[in-house]
């Protein structure tokens, strides 16, 4: 246990204020100069039910939640006992304590609310026995009592923060500042009082542990953001001023951020009757000249399948967001998974013609969402940002200046009325919006209300002004023109100097790891550890799902002897995509899969790598190794 990092966890019932408390805790450490990262775990349930958030802090570059954790603040589940006689939850109240035993590192610290959890209960779960075995340091504190005395009962969490601060050596001024900013007034006062009382009480304890908060210093001011923030903010900066949606976890976060901010940004947010309508409205608004988006998760995105195809065929720009959670069907709605890749790539009848990006962290989420808007509007194509519950919900500190960007009001490939008057029309004066000779597949469009721009948009195959056509030659032209966009977008992406693919590790390493989306940075952390221990490994985090980055991945795969492909699903979808796109390398690739609702920890990647390359056994857990194809 060193001072180089801290992994603090707060656990309680849904409704016990775990989210806000952990957010403040993370922000305080960030303001204190540390890089922070949070991991949220919650059940699909509104009140009660065990939930926790972990905050990891390091002087710099924190890339994942890490392995295990060091400090548990257990509030118990105060909603576990339901007053209604129809429900009684056995020992659920203790879950926020005993469910954490498996992950708590040796030498770790436990603080629990002895106001809620009595000695008998503690005995039942053998707390002290376990503590002795693992060299844990246990501090029972009557957080409820403290809260009642100095504030209100719900401020148990604040009392817990005070105790944590005392035991870890964090300056409480950061918390006080935050409470004043976030709550204000009497509530802030009461919280601050509780905080300090708890701090003082714990400062008196006999400290048996040697855990403390590391010291850090930032070059510039930091902002604490999630992947959802990255996506929503990129949309706003892209000039998106219309969103239509329907709530669904975890997509709701992006939808909510947009809905709350669009009115102030002069835009419109619509919550509608279902996701078919949601996608259709976005298409309608975009067709009418506005930059628009929609999105969903799981079954909600499935309902967008038909409108998505309509956007492809009518060449209506639209950005859709898909936030993955564990499937199939309702699955595990609050757990991450990466199993919607193929669904998002291929759903809707006919050949797919869409852009799909899968960012790996909040910054990539911002960058790639901006690109999604650019390509959607420049190429008249649906662009999808695919991420998951992990990336969407975890918070990270990012230099605030990262967001110092210019907004983009450009509506893309649209003609002005002047340009329209010069453009090609048919004999009846209809604009050839689907002219056969687009550049890079694109024909700049007109917008309803423009003089000289009228045309028909249709989901049927159509000729140049949009009238339905079943002529085989026209069909071939139009299909080829539409598909050409993907080739052109691939060329654009390759030409830019900011590839969406992220490379990590020594360029000449012998072994490779391919990864995508939210698992990327965890793999990067594992790569560092592996190289530190003498392995020769590098990783490529792929974000371009369609059009696929053939040359980059080919070069990577050619340069390694063997490659592990890490993803959170059961059928190795990204490996499959890679094999499909490249038609070879199957024998070089082994999949490391996990689909139990828990993301990989860096140590698991290390173990998976060892099992593959060094042919050790996979040490238990819920991972799955899928051997190389063609073996």
């Amino acid at each position: 246990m060193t001072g180089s990092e801290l992994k603090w966890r707060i656990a309680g019932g849904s409704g016990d204020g775990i989210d806000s408390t952990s957010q403040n805790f993370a922000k305080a450490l960030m303001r204190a100069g540390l890089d922070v990262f949070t991991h949220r775990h919650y059940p699909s349930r509104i009140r009660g039910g065990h939930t926790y958030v972990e905050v990891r802090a390091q002087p710099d570059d924190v890339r994942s939640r890490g392995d295990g954790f060091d400090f548990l603040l257990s509030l118990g589940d105060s909603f576990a006992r339901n007053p209604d006689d129809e429900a009684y939850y056995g020992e659920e109240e203790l879950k926020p304590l005993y469910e954490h035993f498996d992950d708590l590192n040796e030498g770790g610290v436990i603080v629990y609310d002895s106001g809620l959890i009595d000695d008998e209960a503690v005995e039942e779960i053998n707390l002290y026995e376990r503590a002795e075995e693992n060299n844990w340091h246990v501090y029972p504190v009557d957080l409820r009592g403290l809260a009642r005395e100095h504030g209100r009962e719900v401020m148990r969490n604040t009392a817990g923060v005070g105790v944590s601060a005392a035991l870890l050596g964090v300056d409480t001024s950061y918390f006080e500042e935050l409470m004043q900013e976030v709550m204000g007034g009497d509530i802030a006062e009461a919280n601050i009082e509780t905080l300090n009382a708890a701090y003082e009480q714990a400062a008196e304890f006999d400290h048996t542990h040697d855990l403390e908060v590391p010291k850090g210093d930032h070059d510039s001011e930091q902002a604490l953001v999630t992947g959802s923030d990255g996506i929503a903010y990129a949309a706003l900066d892209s000039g998106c001023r219309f969103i239509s949606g329907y709530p669904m976890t975890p997509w709701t976060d992006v939808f909510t951020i947009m809905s709350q901010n669009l009115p102030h940004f002069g835009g419109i947010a619509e919550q509608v009757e279902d996701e078919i309508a949601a996608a259709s409205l976005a298409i309608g608004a975009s067709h009418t000249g506005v930059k628009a988006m929609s999105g969903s998760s799981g079954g909600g995105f499935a309902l967008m399948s038909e409108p998505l195809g309509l956007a492809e065929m009518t060449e209506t720009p639209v950005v859709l967001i898909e936030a993955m959670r564990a499937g199939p069907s309702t699955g595990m709605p609050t757990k991450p998974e990466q199993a919607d890749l193929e669904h998002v790539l291929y759903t809707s009848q006919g050949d797919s013609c869409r852009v799909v990006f899968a960012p790996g962290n909040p910054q990539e989420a911002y960058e790639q969402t901006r690109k999604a808007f650019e390509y959607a509007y420049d190429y008249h194509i649906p662009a999808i940002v695919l991420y998951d519950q992990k990336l969407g919900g975890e918070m990270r500190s990012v230099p605030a200046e990262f967001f110092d960007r210019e907004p983009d009001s450009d509506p893309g490939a649209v003609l002005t009325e002047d340009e329209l008057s010069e453009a090609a029309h048919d004999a009846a004066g209809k604009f050839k919006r689907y002219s056969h000779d687009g550049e890079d597949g694109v024909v700049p469009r007109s917008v309803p209300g423009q003089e000289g721009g009228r045309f028909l948009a249709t989901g049927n195959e159509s000729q140049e002004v949009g009238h339905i056509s079943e002529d085989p030659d026209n069909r071939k032209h139009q299909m080829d023109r539409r598909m050409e966009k993907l080739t052109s977008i691939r060329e654009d992406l390759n030409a830019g100097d900011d590839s969406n693919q992220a490379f990590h590790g020594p360029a000449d390493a012998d072994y490779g790891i391919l990864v995508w989306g939210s698992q990327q940075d965890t793999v990067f952390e594992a790569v560092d550890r592996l190289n530190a221990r003498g392995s020769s490994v590098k990783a490529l985090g792929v974000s371009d799902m369609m059009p696929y980055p053939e040359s980059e991945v080919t070069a990577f795969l050619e340069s390694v002897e063997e490659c592990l492909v890490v993803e959170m699903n059961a059928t190795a979808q990204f490996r499959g995509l890679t094999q499909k796109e490249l038609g070879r390398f199957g024998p070089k690739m082994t999949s490391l899969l996990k689909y139990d609702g828990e993301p990989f920890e860096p140590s698991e990647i290390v173990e998976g790598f060892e099992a593959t390359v060094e042919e050790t056994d996979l040490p238990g857990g819920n991972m799955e190794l899928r051997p190389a194809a063609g073996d």
Partner: protein
Amino acid sequence: MTAFSAIHEEHESDKEDFTPGVEPQPTWCPGCGDFAVLKALKGAMPELGRSPEEVMLVTGIGCSGKLSSYFESYGYHSIHGRALPIARASKLANPGLEVVAAGGDGDGYGIGANHFMHTARENHDMTYIVFNNEIFGLTKGQTSPTSPKGHKSKTQPSGSAKDPVRPLTLSLASGASYIARTAATNPRQAQQIIAEAIEHDGFAHIDFLTQCPTWNKDAKEYVPYTDVQEEYDFDKTDRREAADMMYEAETKLYEGEVLTGRFFREENRPSYGQEKRSTGEMPEDPLAERYYDDDDGFERVADHLIERHK
């Protein structure tokens, strides 16, 4: 100067302006009632001083859905049942457009009925024309939600066991603020009603009886029609009286009596755009214009939102 000069100009247009050139010619069957909708719409637009390029006509899929192919304007021939959500968004994005949605009875009262209900409830300022031929035309004559009970078709060989939907009653229950029924056999009334519906500031729903001689009904089955304004004494601004009149018209249709006319009109109900602007959740100026107006600086996230993350 606006980027959309077709909007809000005074226009001198005529029927021909709304007619495409030689191609495409309507492919509807001889005697199809759909021709009458096209004609009435073409007649109503110049009457109201509209020009083709300020009209956004969104249609579904069906024989009816082909209306946008044969009517000259900005057109969107969408997918089955989804004309309304697309149309709705067009109106929100650019309220200056004259938005008309149209589709069949299957399209609007079957697969798309949820959007119908919710669009009516929200009272979007637009016109929705349902070609009610009591049949699925384009897919070759299957039972539709308005087909009479007992109606035999390839998919219900012994006759439909379902009571037909009551489109007017449903429209009223949902919240449409203008509701009328007209028929292809009554072209004068049809054109007037379409014009009125377009002028109405709110969701105007027209159930348009369009015979389908190929699979279902002949024009003669929609005559004689009775104009409810002439033959019945009821107040179309009174919800209750309107409801009774609708119920009767819906029932009589299947007994061979065709009641048409204006059934309901609520004048003072604000449209969705008005409601939404009044809550502050919709900009006063047309949203679409922002993108084409060089002076409009777009808001920056860095200026407004990053502070709270620090």
